[in-house]
């Protein structure tokens, strides 16, 4: 029997990502309800899936057919909607990243889910990409000491990828006018949003490699939209760089792990598409490159498969890990925003 899902949110992440992804899961899930905040997009999506639709959260949460609530709304709504879903007695929640934007919210939602026994999974899809598992295995097996990590992104507009996986677009996110980056608080908010919204994809990996953030060395916003953030975590140095470009090459999303003896590169495929796992290459200090075989399954499909296993009782929910990831992302975004503010004051 498939698990019945209700989606809170009907933006591009649902239309061009999760709904098409579920098609790869052999009927493990069935969409029964979609809700939006008034955009009318839930109705359009519901028509093509045969699901019910509603506006706001109440009807979906009261719908007895919904087993799993998938929270795909704007990040600020996530904690409140998780709490409401638990209060409504829902047994499982898929929450798009980030889980929360404040430490207090993260603590509360995890505590409430744990106490209620509600299954919880956060959609940091890179964590579920088999290439990351392979990379971790390499790092552990060769016992190289991790010394530096970089994550570099250069992203063209998502629309290019939406149309490869879904119909009915363009699926444009809500337009919010151009922020006034000369205002330090606005700039800090934008950086915080970019780190908790994009960099968060790699936070589980970064926390593995560089567990405790000791200090942000630099933090910049990069035009037109982007960031450059460097921080120190014990003896590990981390460099995060991102730009979004109005036009441009295929998406670059590369994680590099520099150890005492080699360099490991993980190239993630573009967002939205189902192009298999990331590609992992290792360069030994002798200049020999080794490329690992890619897997057919991508991180998006894998994360839903893990949710199905959780629902089937095949594995426990890692509440502590989810909470630690959330705290790490918030710590990083808070510290980077403070550093950015110092630059404005100077």
């Amino acid at each position, binding site marked *: 029997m498939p698990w019945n899902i209700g989606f809170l949110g009907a933006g591009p992440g649902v239309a061009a990502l999760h709904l098409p992804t579920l098609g790869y899961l052999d009927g493990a899930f069935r969409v029964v309800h979609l809700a939006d905040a008034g955009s009318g997009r839930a109705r359009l999506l519901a028509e093509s899936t045969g699901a019910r639709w509603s506006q706001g959260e109440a009807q979906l949460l009261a719908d007895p057919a919904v087993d799993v609530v998938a929270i795909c709304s704007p990040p600020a709504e996530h904690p409140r909607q998780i709490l409401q879903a638990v209060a409504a007695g829902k047994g499982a929640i898929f929450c798009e990243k980030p889980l929360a934007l404040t430490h207090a919210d993260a603590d509360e939602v995890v505590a409430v889910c744990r106490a209620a026994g509600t299954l919880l999974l956060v959609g940091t899809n890179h964590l579920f990409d088999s290439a990351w598992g392979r990379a971790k295995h390499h790092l552990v097996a060769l016992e190289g*000491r991790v010394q530096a990590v970089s994550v*570099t992104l250069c992203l063209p507009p998502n629309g290019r990828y939406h149309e490869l996986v879904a119909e009915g677009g363009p699926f444009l996110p809500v337009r919010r006018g151009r922020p006034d980056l000369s205002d330090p608080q606005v700039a800090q908010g934008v950086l915080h949003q970019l780190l908790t919204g994009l960099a968060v994809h790699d936070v589980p990996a970064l926390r593995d490699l560089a567990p405790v953030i000791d200090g942000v060395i630099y933090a910049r916003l990069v035009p037109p939209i982007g960031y450059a953030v*460097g921080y120190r975590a014990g003896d590990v*140095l981390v460099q995060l*760089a991102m730009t979004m470009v109005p036009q441009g090459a*295929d998406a670059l999303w590369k994680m590099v792990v520099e150890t*005492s*003896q080699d360099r490991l590169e993980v190239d993630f495929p573009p967002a939205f598409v189902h192009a298999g796992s990331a590609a992992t290459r290792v360069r030994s200090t002798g*200049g020999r490159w080794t490329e690992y075989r890619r897997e057919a399954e991508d991180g998006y499909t894998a994360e839903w498969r893990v949710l199905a296993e959780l629902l089937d009782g095949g594995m426990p929910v890692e509440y502590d890990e989810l909470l630690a990831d959330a705290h790490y992302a918030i710590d990083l975004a808070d510290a980077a925003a403070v550093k950015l503010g110092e630059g404005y004051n100077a």
Partner: protein
Amino acid sequence: MREPRKRVPVFTELPGYGAAVASMAVSTVPADGAAGAIVVLSGHDDWWDGVLAAQAAGAAAVVVAAPLVAPTDAVQGLLDNAAVPVLLERPRLRPDVVKQLVDALADAPPSLVTVECSAVAPEAAAVIHDALGWARAIGQGRLALQSASTTLHGSIGLLQASGADGPLDITLMVNVVNSGRPGGFLRLTCLGEVLATVTVDVPAGVASLDVATEKGALRLPTCLEATERLALRRALQALEGGHIPADLAGLLDDSQLSASFIPGRVERLFRRSASV
């Protein structure tokens, strides 16, 4: 009948330069001494003293092969006192690949640049110099250090170039590995509408430039000329043109900035060798 071209004598004991002279048989000839010759020195030890000694011995130009260290006072001293062209062969900063990159980005300057490099400790300073040389080349001007931090085994930091296209942020990440074949690794990524990636992997014999746009990806022709031959050719050009190349000035800039990026174990190594 045309007059045979006058061949410029080259005085060198370095095998790579011997090969370069052999491959430039029309324009160069091996020499027995420094007087009137292009003198090629190894970049190990106190090469800056060797440059002045070669000049005193009558060298027409000096090429320094792969300078390993570059104390700022020594390089400044050369800038003040060298009257002949001084060319630096920096294996990870090939002028031909630099030109390819600058040309590729001419119409679409990047919005952010990252430079990553790794090397064994004895070569780390030279690799950092070359990494900063790339940053300088892409920034089209002087770089200002914004912030940096070092650990025992690495460093990261942010630089800003104030080039013709406005301020450009450039990040640098350095990693010191425990062992490996000589030469080091360097990767420069220019993020923007033109996504350009330079990879210089000396042990692997790679010096490549990949350029990608919305139309597709292109690997530029591999620069296959030996770095020794390229340096020698540049020395000939300097002599023919009667100009002093900017190599030393560039190295001085790179050396000054590198002080903030030298990892702890490399610093220790320098201190140990200085005290011997």
